[in-house]
């Protein structure tokens, strides 16, 4: 009798252990607002976004994307009633890639589609996590309307298309007009003169992402803007890192000068996006960052005393409309166009997606002019990748018109160029830049840049 119980207990324990190895159950709970619109026969279409439709917190950093999903999920489900039921699974922006690759490689549950930044493309491609969309995309009606540079950003090293570009996210300089009454300087020399003037008033010329936080994300922002505006580059066009150039050396020497003379605030190096604080309180006169930054940089205290305190993206939009904040190109050395980084936001279909046909329907639905602008303004946070869409009414606001002028006058390109391991390069280069401009202002710039590029290229 006892042995029988022991045997039963053992079988139970074994079953318990084996059950842990089973794949997790597919989510069945519909997102808020969906249950009434989706009929029972509709098949779940699962997406991963960095936004959460159930998060209604008005103070959330991602409120714009959250609200977008809340609004669009019922619309999609109504449009595809009886066919697809959109289920979004929110993922943290800095964890999504890891989870996706791990899920694909482990044969776990993957979404049918996920929101993707083009800078991650090589990483997904190398890990075999995304499907080739070339053939399907080229057969769609919107294909010829796509900006070629956006398509390029979604193209892997093997020439295949791994994401569908929907929004382009260029970088700009946000400027407090009262800090630069004659406009943001056009040359490094003029900028230094303005910086000295601001310093004598107890202010900083600019704030920028100067820390090595987020594995060197700062490189893609103010640092790249400086390097590219000085005519610098990150690669040789053939996948090799090319850092040790006179232009890059000049750019880093310039940044070093700004830091050592105290023209940028110490908080620029604190990480955690806290460099934004110096722009929020107008102690720094300018802030080179992504156009999408308008959502996160609030509330704002203008130099003239006006406080923009709605604590959401409307603060920056109001400040721009009121003329307190304006966009500018970065300053550039003679003979060079002001540079900046540009990224693409779009969609990818992971390997192992259960319903790729749902993903195709979804992409076509989003690419339709009726929905496209909403996505670009919502999760995209940039300009439409569909060229024809930029003429629509939604992009004729002061914010977009001013931004468009600045982008037109700049030479925006992806910072990583032909580098196939941007995540690795980002950390490596930003660590070096940080050493040169902050930690060791006497170190030889060329020597360190050379050793950094050699370290990267050794693994090519």
């Amino acid at each position, binding site marked *: 009798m006892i*042995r029988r119980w*022991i*045997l039963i207990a*053992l079988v139970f*324990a*074994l079953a318990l*252990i084996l059950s*842990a*190895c089973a794949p997790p159950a597919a989510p069945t709970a519909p997102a808020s607002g969906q249950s009434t619109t989706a009929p029972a026969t509709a098949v779940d279409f699962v997406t991963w976004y960095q936004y959460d439709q159930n998060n209604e917190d008005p103070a959330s950093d991602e409120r714009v994307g959250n609200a977008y999903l809340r609004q669009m999920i019922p619309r999609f489900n109504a449009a595809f009633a009886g066919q697809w039921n959109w289920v979004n699974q929110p993922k943290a922006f*800095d*964890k999504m*890639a*890891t989870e996706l*690759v791990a899920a694909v*490689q482990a044969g776990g549950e993957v979404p049918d589609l996920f929101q993707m930044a083009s800078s991650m493309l090589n*990483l997904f*491609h*190398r*890990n*075999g996590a995304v499907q080739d969309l070339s053939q399907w995309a080229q057969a769609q009606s919107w294909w010829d309307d796509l900006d070629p540079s956006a398509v390029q950003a979604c193209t*892997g090293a*093997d020439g295949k298309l791994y994401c569908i570009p929907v929004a382009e996210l260029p970088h700009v300089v946000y400027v407090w007009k009262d800090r630069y009454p004659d406009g943001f300087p056009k040359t490094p020399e003029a900028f230094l003169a303005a910086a000295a003037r601001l310093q004598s008033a107890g202010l900083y010329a600019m704030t920028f992402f100067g*820390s*090595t*936080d*987020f*594995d060197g994300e700062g490189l893609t922002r103010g640092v790249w803007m400086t390097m590219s505006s000085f005519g610098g580059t990150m690669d040789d066009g053939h996948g090799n890192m090319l850092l040790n150039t006179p232009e890059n050396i000049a750019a880093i020497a310039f940044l070093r000068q700004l830091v050592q003379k105290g023209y940028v*605030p*110490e*908080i620029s*190096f*604190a*990480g*955690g996006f*806290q460099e934004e*604080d*110096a722009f929020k309180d107008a102690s720094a006169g300018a802030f080179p960052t992504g156009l999408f930054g308008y959502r996160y940089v609030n509330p704002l205290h203008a130099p003239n005393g006006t406080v923009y305190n709605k604590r959401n993206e409307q603060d920056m939009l109001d400040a721009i409309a009121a003329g307190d904040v304006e966009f500018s190109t970065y300053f550039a050395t003679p003979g060079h166009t002001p540079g900046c980084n540009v990224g693409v936001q779009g969609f990818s279909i992971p390997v192992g997606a259960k319903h790729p046909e749902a993903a195709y329907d979804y992409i076509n639905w989003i690419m339709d002019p009726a929905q496209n602008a909403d996505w670009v303004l919502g999760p995209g946070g940039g300009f439409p990748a569909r060229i024809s869409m930029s003429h629509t009414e939604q992009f004729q606001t002061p914010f977009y018109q001013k931004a468009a002028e600045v982008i037109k006058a700049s030479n925006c390109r992806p910072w990583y160029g032909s580098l196939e*391991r941007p*995540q*690795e390069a980002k*950390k490596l280069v930003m*660590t070096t830049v*940080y*050493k040169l401009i*902050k*930690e*060791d202002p006497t170190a030889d710039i060329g020597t360190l840049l050379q*050793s950094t590029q050699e*370290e990267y290229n*050794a*693994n090519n």
Partner: protein
Amino acid sequence: MLQTWCARLRKRGLDTLPFWLILPTVLVLLVVQVYPAVYTLWLSLHEREPQGWFYVGLKNYNRLFHTSLFSESVGHTLVFLLGYVGLTMAAGFCVALLLSRNVRFSGLYITLLFIPWIIADIIAGLVFRLLVVPDYGLLSGILQNPSLFLPHGLSVLTAVRPQPWFGQFPFPPAPAMLYLILASSWRALPFITLLLLASLQTIPTEIIESSRIDGASRTQVIRRILIPLMLPTLVVALFSLTLSGMNGVGMIFSLTSGGPGTSTEVLSYMLYSIGWRQLRFGRAAALAMLIALVNWLLISGTLRFTRVQDRRD
């Protein structure tokens, strides 16, 4: 015939009973320990390409050793471990000594002391970060006062590391590293204190009293009586702290993210960075194997030491 067969079966059943009893544990260990370990070893010898996994031998290890950050991280890990283990052990021992006296409200003190232990690493790190954020951190006003910290005040999260005394070895550590050690010790202190307090309370008071009658000073009592008698517990505490310091990443993640620059980038954070940010699983697995090797050395060293002690006792 049937009876003999049944008896034999019963005997065999009893003989194999221990095997069946231990089987669930073995299965669990196989699933959660052995399989991941073997898989990590396999990963460390492979590299991911779009077409799949490719065997690369020891290339991942080789690449790791040739990464400038690796040797730097080893130095940071050593400095962190020395500071963290040393500070926590010393503070834990002192607090345990104080609490072992029959002071009023000692129960309350022990309860209060336990609070840091129940706070998650990430949360503790965030709180400590908020204390020293440049410009508006609660302690920043004091720390950034130039008259207190010459010449420009101290901004913990952005201050550059001092010039190293021994070649490239990161000593003296950056202010952020010292702060990280302080925060990590604060969090680990309750556990170590309670462990040592429990050990202290098992020492018969007669031994201490008789040593005092024999004229032993306070220091001599600690050195000659308390520490030798507490040695097995001290070793366990040391072992526990070293392992948690070696493998912990939560506090670093939320407090410094390895910065400023790379001044708090220890091996465990580097592993996180390579594996979960750069998604270089092969190289991350190689680093994980190296960390596992260090852990194994620590464990086996401790076990060996405690066995020697047991034999002496």
